[in-house]
């Protein structure tokens, strides 16, 4: 029983990480997992499959994006909330703020593919099956996402170096 509960816990944490990779917003990710979990339990029994849960969360996210595109005025408050949260580090489980910012700048599909590749360890073909894309598209998305991340992280490193140099000159 304890082992089963631990597995369910792990499954929920994995689902949360995947939702974070999709939307890059802590509270929205929580809501996606909550809604997805209830849907999975209701329609597929008490021990839902990981792939199934990921698919449900993905579909919920796509529905949400479509709704926001159809009714853009509704998302006003949520944008304000996102801005507020992005300035508050306590809303992020990870302390790597620079990487968080870099990931936020990626498109959701790039973040998703990168997460499935780097964290979940899926192959490009498997990701293609999960996200209904060709293997080539997946590979190019991964390549582009990694490139964008590298540019952002290098830029930040360069800024830090120039700041340190500036401070050194001032002190001397």
């Amino acid at each position, binding site marked *: 029983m304890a082992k089963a*509960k631990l597995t*369910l*816990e792990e499954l*929920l*944490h994995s*689902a*949360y*990480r995947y939702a*974070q*990779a999709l939307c890059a917003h802590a509270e929205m990710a*929580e809501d996606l*997992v*909550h809604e997805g*979990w*209830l849907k999975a*339990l*209701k329609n597929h029994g008490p021990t839902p499959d990981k792939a199934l849960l990921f698919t449900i969360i993905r579909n919920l996210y796509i529905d949400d994006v479509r709704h926001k595109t159809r*009714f853009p*005025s*509704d998302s006003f408050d949520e944008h304000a909330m996102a801005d507020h949260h992005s300035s508050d580090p306590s809303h992020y*489980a*990870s*302390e*790597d703020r620079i*990487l*968080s910012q870099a*990931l936020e700048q990626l498109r959701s599909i790039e973040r998703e593919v*990168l*997460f499935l590749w*780097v*964290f979940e360890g899926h192959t490009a073909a498997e990701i293609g099956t999960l996200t209904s894309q060709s293997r080539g598209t997946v590979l190019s998305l991964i390549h582009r996402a*990694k490139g964008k*991340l*590298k540019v952002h*992280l290098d830029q930040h490193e360069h800024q830090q170096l120039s700041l340190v140099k500036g401070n050194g000159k001032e002190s001397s």
Partner: protein
Amino acid sequence: MNEQDQRVRDHYEKMSLPKERLEHLLNAEGLEADEKAPNGLLARLHSLSEHYRNMHSVYRNTALGMVATCFVVLALSSKIS
């Protein structure tokens, strides 16, 4: 796996669902309550708020249309006179 990939991996590794939400989802009673909610008051409130949101955009578009029509009528009437 290069350094950047490892950093991304660590970033996601540190993420976890908040304890309160996790316990709520693992709690059978909580789940039952939530499962009942779609047919109950919460669901009706949700659909009502959705309805008002949609109506809000309809009213806004209608008002904008009326203002635009007024401008056109005023411009035409001033030209005719």
